[in-house]
């Protein structure tokens, strides 16, 4: 029998994996993917809560979030593409030089 706790646990595990990836990976695309994993964990939380409390608003919010995440990924990828064209690579270290 699946309970809310199972979903929450899955979400927590996914979030932790995403966080680890976001903090450790040097490749910007990998960081982006990790952030997406974290976001998905949040979405699972949203839908799980919506499902177990009979509230459709959570589903709606999740749908909106998916649309926004798609937009974010598009912007992020185009940004990284430019970073790559400019520097020959797309790593986190390149971004830290942007303040100069």
């Amino acid at each position, binding site marked *: 029998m699946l309970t809310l706790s199972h979903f929450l646990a899955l979400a927590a595990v996914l979030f932790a994996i995403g966080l680890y990836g976001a903090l450790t990976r040097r490749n910007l695309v990998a960081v982006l993917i990790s952030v997406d994993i974290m976001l998905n964990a949040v979405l699972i939380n949203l839908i799980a809560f919506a499902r177990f409390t009979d509230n459709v608003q959570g589903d709606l919010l999740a749908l909106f979030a998916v649309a926004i995440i798609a937009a974010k990924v598009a912007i992020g990828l185009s940004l990284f593409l430019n970073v790559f064209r400019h520097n020959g690579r797309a790593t*986190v270290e390149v*971004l*830290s030089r*942007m303040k100069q």
Partner: protein
Amino acid sequence: MTPLSYAWLIPLLPALAFAINILCGYRLGKRAAWLSVALLALSTLLAVALLIQVRQAAPVWDNAGLVRMAEVEGRVAALQGELTELRRLGAEAAVIQPLARELATLEAELPTLAAAVLEREAAPGFPFVSELAWLSIGGQEGIPFGLLLDPLAALLVLMVALVSLLIHLFSIGYMEGEARFPTFFAYLSLFSAAMLAMVMSRNLFHILLFWELMGVMSYLLIGFYYRKIAAQQAMKKAFLVTKLADLGLLIGLFWLYRHFGTLDLVRLSELAPSLLAGASGVATAIGLLLFVGAMGKSAQFPLHVWLLDAMEGPTPVSAMIHAATMVAAGVYLIARATPILVMGEALPVIAWVGGLTALLAALLALAFTDVKKILAWSTASQLGLMFLGLGVFGWAAAVFHLVTHAFFKALLFLGSGSMIHGSGTQDIFEMDRLKRAMPATRATFIIGALSLIGVVPFAGFWSKDKILLALKDALGTGYGYELLLVLAYLAVFLTALYTTRLYLIAFEQPSRPSPWRAAAWHQGALAELNMSAKEVEHDKRLSHSHPHPPHESGWQMLTPLWLLAVGATVLGLLGSPLLGNPLQTFVYYGAKPYLAPLSKQWLGFVLGTAVALAGITVAWLLYGSQQLSLRAPEPLTRLLQKRLYLDQLYYRLLADPATRLAQPLAWFDLKVLERGVKGVANSISLLARLLTLWQSGYVRLYALSILLGTVALVLLLAILGVNA
């Protein structure tokens, strides 16, 4: 067309000249001066129109009727006194009866006389007043701004505009080549504008406003040569002393407002008799407070100390301060406050202070060798006479003397300016027989001097005589006026003495070392100001005063002299009994104009002339032919040269304690406040520098920061027990 439609332009035009000259005067160059002169000339024309219109609208008083009324009133008062005295002594009815009958007839005659005195009724709308709301909040009255154009205002407006105009004209020649030439004219114009606005204001609050504006302008003008240390000290001194006096005026005005609920002159004079009846203590206090303000502005003892140092300004400024503006403001204020003053007991104080100033200043004038300083003392002395006149109900006489004094004192000051310009020195002993080189200056100076001394028929004679006449009328009122009369005549004698001395030494005699060593005196004065020898040297270089062979001044300087000389000669006739006192009957405004019959005035004329001539003769014997030699005892001259040690006294009493109080405060300010403020600023910048370390640009550091922040927040919420 009522004068109200254009009168507001009179002060505005010079103010405009100020605005233009201060903003783009340096581009105008010498034209800046002509701009000031032109606008002020326009003002003067308007002032003439104003005077004519006010004259047409003003009620006309019949001179003969006023004289007769004064006579009857005097007789009635005398009879009443006599009758009370007789009744008290229990005299027989046969003695009392005829006197009582005469009193009854005279008293019955008074109303008819009073009705006949008015030759022509005032035109409707006289005096011309206007009112604009100002500072009116939520339907309250506020402090309405308005013009009050009555004979006094119209007369003074013309006097101020005309004298200022001539001083402006004179300054063009005198200030030629000065570095801050346009600025000087800007200041001078605003100075005139402030005075013009002041005499036209109907609200005492606005009078105070323009009064203070004049204070600022005098500060700037006295310190015009601001690189001279003596000028810096003088400007500060003038400002502080008059500001101290203004405190009294301010308190007086607050009190007035509390008592009357208004500062409007028109309403005040209506309300004063009813509201102050039975409150003579209040009226006295208010009157004295107002007088303190006037004492500061008009340099009355013991607040006269700033006047002498004010000579550090350029000579036209001295003329401006001493003739047309500034010092006249105090007299004007007291003349305006008369309805309040008569309800209290302040008038005798005013009379006595005025009389003492007249005498002391005349005495002090004898001890100085700087031509401008002698004239400065003379101004204080003459203003003392005016206050003396105001104090003994000689209202019209004081105003009359104010007008004539403006002309002859402006003449004398501008004359002294011409002398200084021509000879390069201010010390009369260093001036080398100016009569040979400067005939025009000499001629006009003699006219001014004769007017100041009070010789028939020059202007000063008539007005001075009127004041003495008013004083004689007030004899026996129990304020010791008999003694005051003697002092006043002594002052007249001394006036003749110092004026003649000034003339003889400067114009007639070859230069010689000043008996009291002007330079030494100068250094002594500077030592008083705590100046070092180096600063003294610096000052000397700046004032570039080195005697040179005298030469006559140019036409720009001589024209005003001649015009003023005409004024100083004929103006007195306006108030002379020979022509029926037109000036006094014009400004007659409820106050007694002192129109004693001519027959009664002869004695005064003869006495005044005799005293003046005696002064001239003694001066001639002492300084001209030198048949008489008088060495004043050393302590006396020292006392006079040190100006009665008043400066030192004030220094000890006020400046020293203030300095002592200021030192710990300065320490606190520097060591505690300053450091505290700086410490706060420094610690914030230190914190900011620490925080910039965080802004490394490492994305991962930022992400970690976000994570740690979130964890910290969650923990915080968990600990605090805040949950959904």
